[in-house]
């Protein structure tokens, strides 16, 4: 590599701006890639560093504490001092075992689930709650 090329590479590195993006580890990779593509299309020199976090509450905590710059999370916000911009509305689905009697269906009606035993996660799981 020539001296000029090395100098150019160093200058590029010096100009590079890094932004951290906190994401809930279970968000679909395609969704994260779409966000990264959007950023890189408009800000090609910006480097986005992904920080995988264990739940959506932790994403909000890390942003509120200024430990990451941006976060992909869901409403409601449990931290104050945050600004949120909606980018998607997602349906709920039913998590079930592949051996479940309804698992062969392509979709399920709530009425069919009336006799089922339900499992829910508490608020401390930092997920979403349906009551």
């Amino acid at each position: 590599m020539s001296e000029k090329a090395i100098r150019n590479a160093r200058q590029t590195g010096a100009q590079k701006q890094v932004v951290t993006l906190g994401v809930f580890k279970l968000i679909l990779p395609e969704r994260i890639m779409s966000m990264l593509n959007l950023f890189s299309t408009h800000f090609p020199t910006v480097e986005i560093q992904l920080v995988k976090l264990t739940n959506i509450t932790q994403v909000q905590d890390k942003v509120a504490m200024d430990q990451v710059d941006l976060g992909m999370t869901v409403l409601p916000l449990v931290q104050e001092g945050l600004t949120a911009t909606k980018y998607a509305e997602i349906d709920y689905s039913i998590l079930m075992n592949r051996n479940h009697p309804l698992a062969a269906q392509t979709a399920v009606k709530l009425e069919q689930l009336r006799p089922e035993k339900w499992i829910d996660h508490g608020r401390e799981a930092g997920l979403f709650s349906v009551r």
Partner: protein
Amino acid sequence: MQVVPSFDLLKSMVQLGKGIAFMPASLDLSQEPTLLSMPIVNEDDTPFREIIIEHVLIHRADQPNPLVRELAGLLMGGLSESLT
């Protein structure tokens, strides 16, 4: 209803056949071969949308870095439609 303190435990309970659970359709179950995410439909087979989850991009309201604010601003003005 059984309440568990973490999503990992919830998945384990469902894997053991102890019950079923609501979950966002956007979660990645590719690493969970014994589990599936089943869409919910109304009686007329249209998608059930009475409860939805709103995904958002967040930053601190007092964020001093203009670049961070500009990145978040990309989602306004219709650009967010490409992410849905």
